[in-house]
């Protein structure tokens, strides 16, 4: 215990050092992200003063770009579990070495998801009303309270796992299985829960037929298992190509194999949804009609959703036909499907739920500049967390950030075992 009092602050201090030290590429990347983040923060500050009226949202379309990104980033966090399952359930050793990247992505994505809900609040100054006991937490009736519980739980679990693994490595010890494996297994179930609850948030509303479908939670999960692996493949490729960290190729290929399956299940679920909507017809199909074909001359989302359809189909084909020697093709497929899922689960899901309105009024929504700024600001913040997390992790794994033996006081071995 005594040694931790000395070594933990040292761990944090060294981590801070690593986080602010690097090549010119690193400095440029971080400076650009900081700049974008600040632009976003400034836009949000203006929104706080002038009110949500500064966004393009209205009483007809009362959720927009922010909630769209919220749904997507929750999915990204859940998608990271596609590294955890091969690593821990199937004991893939190569994956085991890089699984921390997935866990850091989970942390960064949850941070983004929480920010996206917060910037959507009219009164974030009253957020304390949500704290159990102090405020009035409408649990278990409101699905939003479930989301708060599962999202913060997932954040804590992943912070614990990454923090513990990095800290023990920093101390030059082998991590003890019982201090993290149970949490890893818990995180798998929990990952499913965060995205299920987020889907229930929408699918539980009887007044919005476009969302009120039992297929929503399965679709959310499958599309998360598309966007998550796609993002991680790209991140691994970037790390392999642009840094001096040596990563095995095995995990990349495992993720490609997963993606080859999930991308098709995702397309299948989209087809199921589209069939049921259009074959049945009637006024419940109005939202789907608006989304895919436009309604009475209103067609703001049509180009978006067809972009998603084309990107997803193209990515599926590319993934199916490419080999290990055509990684460039796989990289392109990952970018395409990531963007496609962002459209499909973001704007393509949230906005048509409101168009037409529950009284069948047709009021459209196109996000304005302020909303884009806030969105990119939050994404930049998330990418900063991700970059710094990976950087610290890679330094520790490469043995460059390690506690000197002299820094720790000698301690009887027995004390640690207990």
């Amino acid at each position: 215990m005594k040694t931790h009092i000395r070594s933990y602050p040292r761990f944090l201090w060294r981590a801070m050092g690593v986080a602010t030290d690097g090549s010119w590429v690193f400095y440029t990347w971080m400076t650009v992200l900081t700049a974008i983040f600040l632009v976003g923060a400034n836009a949000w500050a203006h929104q706080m003063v002038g009110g949500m009226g500064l966004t393009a949202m209205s009483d007809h379309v009362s959720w927009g770009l922010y909630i769209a990104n919220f749904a997507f980033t929750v999915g990204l966090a859940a998608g990271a579990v596609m590294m955890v399952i091969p690593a821990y359930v199937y004991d893939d050793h190569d994956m085991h070495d890089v699984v921390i990247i997935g866990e850091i992505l989970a942390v960064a994505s949850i941070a983004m998801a929480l920010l996206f809900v917060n910037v959507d609040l009219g009164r974030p100054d009253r957020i304390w009303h949500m704290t159990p006991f102090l405020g009035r937490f409408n649990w278990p009736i409101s699905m939003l309270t479930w989301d708060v519980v599962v999202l913060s739980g997932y954040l804590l679990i992943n912070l614990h796992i990454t923090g513990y693994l990095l800290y023990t490595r920093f101390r030059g010890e082998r991590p003890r299985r019982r201090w993290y494996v149970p949490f890893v297994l818990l995180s798998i179930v929990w990952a499913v829960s965060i995205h299920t609850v987020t889907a229930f948030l929408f699918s539980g509303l009887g007044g919005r037929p476009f969302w009120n479908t039992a297929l929503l939670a399965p679709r959310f999960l499958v599309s998360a298992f598309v966007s998550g692996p796609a993002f991680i493949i790209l991140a691994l490729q970037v790390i392999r190509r642009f840094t001096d960290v040596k990563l095995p190729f095995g995990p990349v290929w495992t993720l490609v194999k997963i993606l080859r399956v999930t991308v098709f299940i995702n397309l299948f679920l989209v087809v199921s949804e589209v069939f049921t909507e259009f074959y049945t017809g009637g006024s419940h199909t109005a939202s789907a009609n608006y989304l895919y074909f436009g309604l009475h001359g209103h067609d703001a989302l049509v180009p978006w959703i067809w972009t998603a359809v084309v990107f997803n189909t193209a990515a599926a084909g590319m993934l199916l036909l490419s080999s290990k020697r055509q990684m460039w093709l796989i990289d392109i497929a990952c970018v395409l499907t990531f963007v496609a899922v962002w459209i499909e689960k973001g704007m393509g899901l949230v906005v048509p739920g409101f168009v037409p309105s529950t009284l069948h009024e047709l009021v459209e929504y196109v996000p304005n500049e302020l909303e884009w700024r806030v969105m990119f600001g939050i994404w930049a913040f998330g990418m900063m967390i991700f970059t710094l997390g990976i950087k610290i992790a890679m330094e520790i794994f490469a043995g460059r950030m390690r506690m000197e033996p002299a820094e720790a006081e000698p301690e009887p071995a027995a004390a640690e075992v207990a």
Partner: protein
Amino acid sequence: MTDFVSRRTLMKGAGATLGAAAFARALAPLTEFGETLDMQGMLQKHYKELSTEDMHGVLRRLEEKTKEEYGAEVFIDDVRPIPDVQFGYALNLSACIGCRKCAEACHEENNHDRATNNSYIRVLAIDKGTVDLAFSETDYDGFVPQKDKYYMPVQCHQCDNAPCVKVCPVEATWKEADGIVVVDYDWCIGCRYCEAACPYHARRFNWSKPEIPAEEINPNQAYLSNRVRPQGVMEKCTFCLHRTRKGQMPACLEACPTGSRVFGNLLDPESEIRQVLLNKRVFVLKEDLGTQPRFFYFFDE
């Protein structure tokens, strides 16, 4: 080497300072938002947890704030439900001519934002021969009634199984003993989940601070109904509880030139609303959703 390290540390320090300054600069507009907040308001408890003295203090503070911000002398009351009263509302679709006088009266009575011409009532003009809302419009113009249309005003249905109440994460909206669904404007966090949940588009959000000239402000106000709402919170029709709980009729009913509107106590066998429910062919909107509205429609012929 040492020289290089110290230069690098110096650069880091400069970078951090610059970053912090830029961050402070970016968030500077927030100070303006902070000025609108006061400590008492920020720490105010939930409506149901306020004692009588607490409530007294809150009401006086809100009156002062209205005076300060809008220049209007108002009286804000905390009107509680009357025992053994269950409110219900019915609307005669055969009589309604779509003049929107009800929406206008609501706008004035409930201190709605003048700039957006907000009201808790939307009037649909529906094609004769259908009850499908897909064949309706709200932005009709010109003379009413048109021969090929009938008109359906829609406001909060005060559902007994209200989706909006279920979804609220902080219990800022609830159903009162007399059946009226209310919002504590000082507790709402503005997530707009209730607005997404409502099948009748009955809820409104204060996208900006409401603008009302002092002389147009209705000074007879209640905490849970028509007091001027803060920016960033939800609002909705309360069947004018500041009037109806004192024995008056809702403003929309009084404004109706055709007598289409029937309001009263469902528990009173002699009331007009009871007679309508007993003798007319009555229906509720979107009955299949199981929301159990307190707002009924009927055709009179």
